[in-house]
């Protein structure tokens, strides 16, 4: 089916595509990869989540109530915060395990999304869900990866190098000096994915958003401009978010007397 440049997918199309995932699950079962179950669960999750999102957005787009937009944004942030926490092998105990990632994502993704809506895109009203929700989604999805990688790196290296950190503390160094190298390394590791995807964008990979716009019938130049905007926003958001997360996280790894507190991390 074709209507105004957009080819509408039929349930049969999706059925065929999903049979490829079933094939993958079957293969991984055959090869004893032990991941077949997780592939199926993840595929089922994405089906339910995306169809639900489609329904929610459909309702949202026809209402343009700012509180509904805010509520959906809050749910997205809440889940992203949980994902960041779940991706860390050793996370901070208590509310910090969740809070560090969620707060960093809130500060970076939300502020950058609001900035982009108010200054750059300027839809009317500025929280117009057709713009606000996809933009925030792209930002959260990508900063989430950067923040999770940075925090995981920070906590893992701190445990591995606890002896070095404590030696530096014992020699009279401040907490910031003692963990400086590890902080920098953690930040770098969180920024590498976005740097890579910026450098290969358009040559190796055709970014998802641009692909989507082209498939939906947008002129390629317009799609390219949107993609660039998003890439820049993601880079800024990832950087800002990872820095916030690493700063908050590494502060929490020391107490008021600048002692290293590995006991504040879970196994």
């Amino acid at each position, binding site marked *: 089916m074709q209507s105004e440049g957009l080819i509408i997918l039929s349930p049969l199309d999706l059925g065929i595509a999903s049979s490829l995932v079933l094939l993958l699950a079957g293969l991984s079962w055959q090869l004893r990869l032990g991941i077949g179950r997780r592939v199926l669960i993840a595929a089922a999750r994405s089906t339910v989540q995306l169809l639900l999102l489609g329904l929610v957005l459909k309702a949202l787009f026809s209402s343009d109530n700012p509180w509904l937009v805010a509520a959906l944004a809050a749910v997205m942030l809440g889940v992203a915060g949980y994902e960041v926490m779940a991706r860390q092998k050793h996370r901070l105990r208590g509310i910090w395990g969740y809070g560090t990632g969620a707060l960093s994502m809130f500060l970076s993704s939300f502020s950058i999304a609001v900035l982009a809506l108010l200054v750059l895109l300027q839809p009317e009203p500025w929280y117009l869900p057709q713009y606000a929700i996809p933009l925030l989604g792209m930002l959260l999805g990508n900063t989430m990866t950067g923040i999770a990688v940075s925090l995981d790196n920070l906590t893992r290296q701190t445990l591995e*190098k606890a*002896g*070095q950190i*404590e*030696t*530096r*503390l*014992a*020699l*009279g*160094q*401040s*907490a910031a000096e003692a963990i400086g*190298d590890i902080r920098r390394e953690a930040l770098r590791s969180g920024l590498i994915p976005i740097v890579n995807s910026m450098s290969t964008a358009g040559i190796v990979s055709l970014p998802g958003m641009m692909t989507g716009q082209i498939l939906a019938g947008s002129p390629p130049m317009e799609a390219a401009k949107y993609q660039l905007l998003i890439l820049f926003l993601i880079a800024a958001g990832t950087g800002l978010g990872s820095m916030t997360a690493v700063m908050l996280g590494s502060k929490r790894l020391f*107490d*008021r*007397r*600048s*002692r*290293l507190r590995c006991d504040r991390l879970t196994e």
Partner: protein
Amino acid sequence: MSRLRVERLSRPGVSVSNLVIDAGICAAVHGASGSGKTLLLRAIADLDEAQGEVWLDERARSSMSGPQWRQRVMYVASESHWWASLVREHALDWPADDLQTLGLEPDVLDWEVRRLSSGERQRLALVRAISHSPSALLLDEPTANLDGVNAERVERLIEAWRRRTDGCVLWVSHDPGQRARVASIRYQVEAGKLRQTDAE
């Protein structure tokens, strides 16, 4: 002039009601492994949380920041750790005399840490500590991995430092001979309690 005074210090695993090490004095500590010697040293250095107070001369630990205290009352762990690749990068100043006392050539500073033997690292960790100008040294089995010759060199280094700076030393050692050589007061840690012992 640096006198270390520990007052009602306690943490899970070890507690000390009163311990005074006068300026220029070395006190030895021994005790079975797991008795709390390392915990005691770490608590005095404020590397671990503990109740109570420690004084350096008339200054209370609680009146200084953690890093300020640890630079003055310096803990040297039994296993040395290094964070940079070259030895030289771990301190601003490496006194040639101290290196010589330990039987180390000055060019050892330009070596990569990973090329050093564990004994060389252990000796260098002591020079590194001294070069940060502490007032008191808390040594946790500083000669554990060293042969007799090098253990004696370490004893001489610490003795020279003590005379030069009038600093005080708390020295954990398993070797009764060493305790008799280096220390004028001796303590034993037993089940987390510190008590003075007669000369051995």
